[in-house]
């Protein structure tokens, strides 16, 4: 029933409003002094060098991809976990099989150095 989500939606709404309000207040009642020093990226200390964006290594991508694969595995576990009590052992065995099959994948990643940084 959609009504039961109403509190959540109200909370989301309040959160958005509060966020906007607080940052908005800063703009309106804060004191602004735009000196050159204040407008640098780091007000004190480091001199900014180069562009903020630079090409990241493909290694991050591999990690992200492996994360997604196991994320999807976990997704299958949610509905099982919710009905765990009801399904009992007959639900445990299929999930164990599923997990064991994917354990081979995890072992493969470990042995092939998929989680090593270099």
């Amino acid at each position, binding site marked *: 029933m959609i009504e039961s989500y109403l509190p959540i939606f109200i909370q989301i709404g309040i959160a958005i409003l509060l966020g906007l309000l607080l940052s908005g207040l800063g703009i309106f009642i804060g004191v602004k002094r735009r000196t050159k020093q204040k407008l640098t990226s780091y007000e004190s200390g480091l001199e900014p060098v180069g562009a903020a964006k*630079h090409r990241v290594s*493909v290694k991050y991508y*591999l990690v992200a991809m*492996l994360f997604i694969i196991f994320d999807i595995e976990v997704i299958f576990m949610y509905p099982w976990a919710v009905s765990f009590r009801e399904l009992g052992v*007959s639900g445990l065995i299929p999930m164990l099989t599923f997990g064991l099959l994917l354990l081979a*994948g*995890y072992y493969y990643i470990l042995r092939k150095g998929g989680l090593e940084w270099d």
Partner: protein
Amino acid sequence: METVSFILFSFLGALVMVGSIGTVWSRNPVTSALFLVLNFFALGGIYLLLEAQFIAVVQVIVYAGAIMVLFLFTIMLLNLDDEQALKEKFDLQKGFGILLGGVLLVEVLYILGLKINLPQKSTTLTPVEIGEAKNIGRELITNFLFPFEIVSILLLLAVVGAIVLAKKNFSPNT
């Protein structure tokens, strides 16, 4: 509570539209990606309105969470410094895209206009119960056990494929 769900739907639908238009419109790829996140979240909300709680959770966790990480990494991998270079002129490709979009729109309108008697599945569950993770879990373990187990092979393939294609310093002797 018809009005509540109508208001919510209008709000979420508008968010989806803003998200998708923003994704295509913005010049900065990172902004595009963030608009896509907004789109995904709003879509998750619409799933909730349709009583598909589990799908909504999956939408947020997998799409807005994991898939978006990949999107952002890809953007950073490509290092699209010069956003102006992405600016396209009106060419054949674009014209074709508009044509296809038009065809799709007509199709959608056509389907909306159809009066089709959809077969009713006899089930003891109410729509709310069908969408519950508990019932999906039960179906997964009983009726859909085989597809569920065989998906693990698909995931294994993805693991092997990812390592073979994307691992740095991957050579025949390691």
